[in-house]
């Protein structure tokens, strides 16, 4: 699975320090292996956002403030957001485990304080993932995102840690076979 070059969608806006218990309350961890079920409950723990995922159209974009995804290490946080139909997350900044998990899943995220500041709920956005540019059609604005380190970018574009590990395992097997 490789990343699309351009993503277009409507923005859903969230504030700062949205933690994993708000993204997907722990009680739904029983659905750890069921992305669609998790998706139904995404962001449900954010006060006032009960039933949020029912309104999401496939391909929409989630825009949040700083330290998005703080709290637990649960990988079901980005899984639930993806399961809800969100194609891309843009935040002012990320808590580190959420950030790792998204990259490892090959799930596109962008860090853009400009977009987090400028975008309002419902704005129509077009995001060029290769250039890291966010265009806001509703407002006629354009925002830059911060470049990730090369290795993280490679992981993201090759589809995450799974294909990367597969490749390394194959290399190891080849070396082991060559040594007899």
């Amino acid at each position, binding site marked *: 699975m490789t990343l699309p070059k351009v993503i277009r969608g409507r923005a859903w806006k969230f504030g700062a320090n949205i933690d994993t218990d708000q993204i997907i309350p722990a009680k739904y961890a029983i659905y750890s292996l069921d992305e669609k079920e998790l998706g139904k409950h995404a962001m449900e723990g*954010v006060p006032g956002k009960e039933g949020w995922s029912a309104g999401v159209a496939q391909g929409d974009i989630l825009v949040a403030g700083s330290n998005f995804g703080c709290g637990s290490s649960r990988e079901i946080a980005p899984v639930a957001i993806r399961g809800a139909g969100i194609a891309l997350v843009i935040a002012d900044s990320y808590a580190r485990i959420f950030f790792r998990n998204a990259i490892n899943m090959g799930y596109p995220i962008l860090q853009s304080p400009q977009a987090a500041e400028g975008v309002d709920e419902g704005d129509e956005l077009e995001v060029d993932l290769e250039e890291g540019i966010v265009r806001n059609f509703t407002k006629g604005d354009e925002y830059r995102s911060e470049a990730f380190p090369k290795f993280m970018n490679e992981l993201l574009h090759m589809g995450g840690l799974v294909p990367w*590990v597969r490749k390394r395992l194959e290399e190891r097997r080849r070396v082991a076979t060559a040594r007899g």
Partner: protein
Amino acid sequence: MGMTMTEKILARGAGRDSVRPGDLVLAKVDFAMGHDLTIPPAGKIMREQMGAEKIWDPERVAVTQDHFQPAKDAASATLGRLTREFSRDMGIKWYFEVGQGGICHTVLPENGLVLPGELVVGADSHSCTYGALNNFATGIGSTDLACVFALGELWFRVPETLKFVYHNRLKEWVEAKDLILYVIGQIGVDGARSKAMEHTGEALRHIDMEARLTMTNMAIEAGAKNGIMEFDEVTRQYLDGRAKRAYTPVSSDPDAEYEKVFEFDAEKVELGVARPMSPDNYSPLSEVAGTKLDQVFIGSCTNSRITDLRRAAAVLDGHKVAPGVRLIITPSSHQVAIQAEKEGLIGIFLASGAAWTTATCGACLGGHMGVLGEGEVCLSTTNRNFPGRMGHPKALVYLSNPAVAAASAVTGVITHPKEVLNKMPAGIA
């Protein structure tokens, strides 16, 4: 230029002479941990997606059944079964069954499985706890854990290090929990985002290993990658007779570079709480005293080891839980429960009217055995109080140390322990 402890451990893991903050490294892992919520996805990803058949070193992996176990419902029973089967199939040496282990972050240190100088990862955010034992320990996701299982290595961004120096000693009644809540209150829940928190200073030399574990446990509540402490006599004594492998302590070089140095006078830190709904919402106890409570919870990887239970029992001895309040006490491990039984603490708890449970994460993450309803107010010795953490999003959670929690259970409102007990007995303080 010298290196910090964190940099040295990552450099060794990466097979390099040195690393700098910002470097991305591929490093060998010394020990890995997962539990009933994170092993099922990690096992599935490792076997079905990565195509690995076995784990790199079954002797360097621990698995606990702690989050939703003993199974709280049929779906959790499935997660427990998948965790059990994976551990058996992979020959994992340190598998802890229900009733024989407890919360991962208590079980690993008490069994001497995470050691000085090591690079430790756990598929749980509070894996930073182990850093009190002078290692680099950090929380990772399930895909990360699958990668470690398959390869024995993982990618890391070398963090900048923030140094926290604690001068003087903590005052009477003030515990490590109060100190770390105060620090998080000062720097915020993203104050150490993706960075290392290196704790040092005189105050730490006078607190025991369990109190130190409480401090590193909460590094993640400031957004940190890891929390780490120096190796000293307290560390050595804690590990004597426990350590399962030889180890090499690590220390920061005198010319190591820190992004920032914070200095605190520990003597000035007051007994405090984190108010709802964020761990950085610190407030001196005096400002919230009298707040009416529905539930008091003493538990979790943060504050439910034997020393915590001793302090709670010293306060509760001879007292009753106030009408209208329920006190739930969950030891953090089976060994802690055995010790509590030997010391007569369980009898004190039961006589006071507390509910005493098996060792589990339980109420801390709103799992089971103490989930909060709408509008309820809870004082808890746990680590985070974001909306919905312990149940309903409109429940209000205050975080405190165990003595404050016990005293507040007796009065039914947030209370200073000296109002229930004149002085913490010698050897317990």
